[in-house]
């Protein structure tokens, strides 16, 4: 679906950003990206989405102009729109019902008419999640979607993602700091490190979904990843 060949994006005279990333995305696949803070994960998503054109290398897509959905690391809500209007942002008005449902699912029923300034951090993040899930883009990118959520809300929303992917599979890239989350949701995991960041290794999680959170194999993989990321290994 999308082929990334030797793509790099540098800042500050090659002292920051990421470099030499190769990646083949097949349709319907869910890719996880794990990596140290500042290794270029968000920048990578920006390059893929076309927001940042200062990269080098080749990005090649099978479909002409694939539609792209992105959830940014910050909520980026429009401060002048209410919760409901924010979720509907980018829609022509035909999805009002879906929007209401999504708001309920992410647990914000009753807050439809609040302005972003009156939301808690986690609530704002959930609005952003709902907004990005309203459409079914060819490529969905989520940048640390659950970072501000408590453990249980997080689990709930992970299930939500799974159920959405089941009914309407869309190719997805999920940046996260939560290894369990990546193992639970993704078909393949990229591990990035360094400054500028590079893909250190790639892990295929070959288990049918829904997976079991207590799964032995997943626990082994977690150990492996932890080792991979450990700074003391340097």
């Amino acid at each position: 679906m999308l082929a990334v060949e030797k793509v790099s994006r540098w800042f500050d005279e090659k002292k920051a950003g990421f470099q030499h990333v190769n990646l083949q995305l097949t349709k319907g696949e869910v890719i996880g990206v794990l990596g140290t803070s500042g290794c270029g994960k968000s920048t990578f998503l920006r390059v893929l989405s076309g927001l940042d054109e200062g990269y080098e290398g080749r990005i090649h897509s099978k479909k002409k102009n694939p539609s792209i959905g992105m959830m940014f690391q910050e909520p980026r809500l429009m401060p002048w729109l209410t919760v409901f209007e924010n979720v509907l942002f980018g829609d022509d008005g035909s999805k009002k019902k879906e929007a209401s449902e999504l708001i309920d699912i992410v647990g914000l029923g009753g807050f439809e008419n609040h302005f972003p300034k009156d939301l808690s951090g986690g609530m704002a993040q959930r609005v952003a999640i709902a907004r990005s899930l309203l459409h079914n883009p060819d490529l969905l990118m989520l940048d640390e979607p659950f970072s501000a959520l408590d453990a249980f809300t997080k689990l709930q929303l992970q299930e939500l993602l799974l159920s959405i992917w089941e009914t309407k599979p869309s190719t997805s890239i999920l940046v996260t700091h939560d290894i369990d989350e990546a193992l639970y949701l993704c078909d393949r995991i990229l591990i990035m490190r360094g400054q500028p960041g590079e893909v250190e290794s790639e892990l295929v999680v070959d288990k049918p979904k829904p997976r079991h959170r207590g799964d032995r194999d997943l626990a082994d993989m977690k150990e492996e990843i932890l080792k991979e990321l450990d700074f003391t290994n340097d």
Partner: protein
Amino acid sequence: MTIRTNTATLPASKKKKSKKKSLPFTDWWAGLLLPVVLIIIWETASRNGWVASHLLPAPTVVVEEMVTMGREGELWGHIGITLYRVLAGFVIGTAAAAILGVLTGSSKWMEKLLDPTLQALRAIPSLAWVPLFILWIGIGEASKITLVAVGVFFPVYLNLTSGIQGVDRKLIEVGRMYGFSTWKQVRKIVFPAAAPSFLTGIRSGLSLGWMFVVAAELLGTSQGLGYLMVFGQNTSSPELVIGSILLFAVFGKATDEILKRIERKSLQWQDRLDNSV
């Protein structure tokens, strides 16, 4: 040792909050304090002849003069025509500024083509147009309204474009992700985000509009508050001059207040101190 206690039995509602915060004197008379004191000093000074009355007639004299004129009816015509000129010029100037501001703000190409010329024109103090407008369009309504419109145009345009340029890149990127067309981008993100600047611009535009109506009416008119002022000046009646200045202030303030209300209403989403509960 510090104790902070809030023991009201009702939830801290808006009302209670503002009461807690307010100063010993309530809002409206704090604002009136200074003007009232000034007016009393002024009245006393004039009555006792500390300032010559041909320089500064007492406020009561001024008000009396205005009331008389109001009762005799001639005042309303002047006020009406001036209001008409300001409003017509304001609408035209704002519309032009909004269209051009959005054009240059949303298309790099347009900006490169138009902005330098507009900026250069802006550099001309708009009053300097007066002689040329008189020469070209004459001293009729058209030239007066054009002058007001020119005055309104630039602050609106400047504030709008600087607001548009200041829009947070992060929000614009959200729109790009939805594949918005430029126009949709402008309509759904740029314009709302630039709204505070735009409204500031509109308000200074209006106040410039009032100024330009004075400029326009100083020259070759037979009606309007500005004419009244010139008339007072030429006939050495400072009470007429000051009276028309006061009327200008009253109407300028009233129209500004309307805009201010609109601004308040439409900017409730802003996370500012005075918007919080």
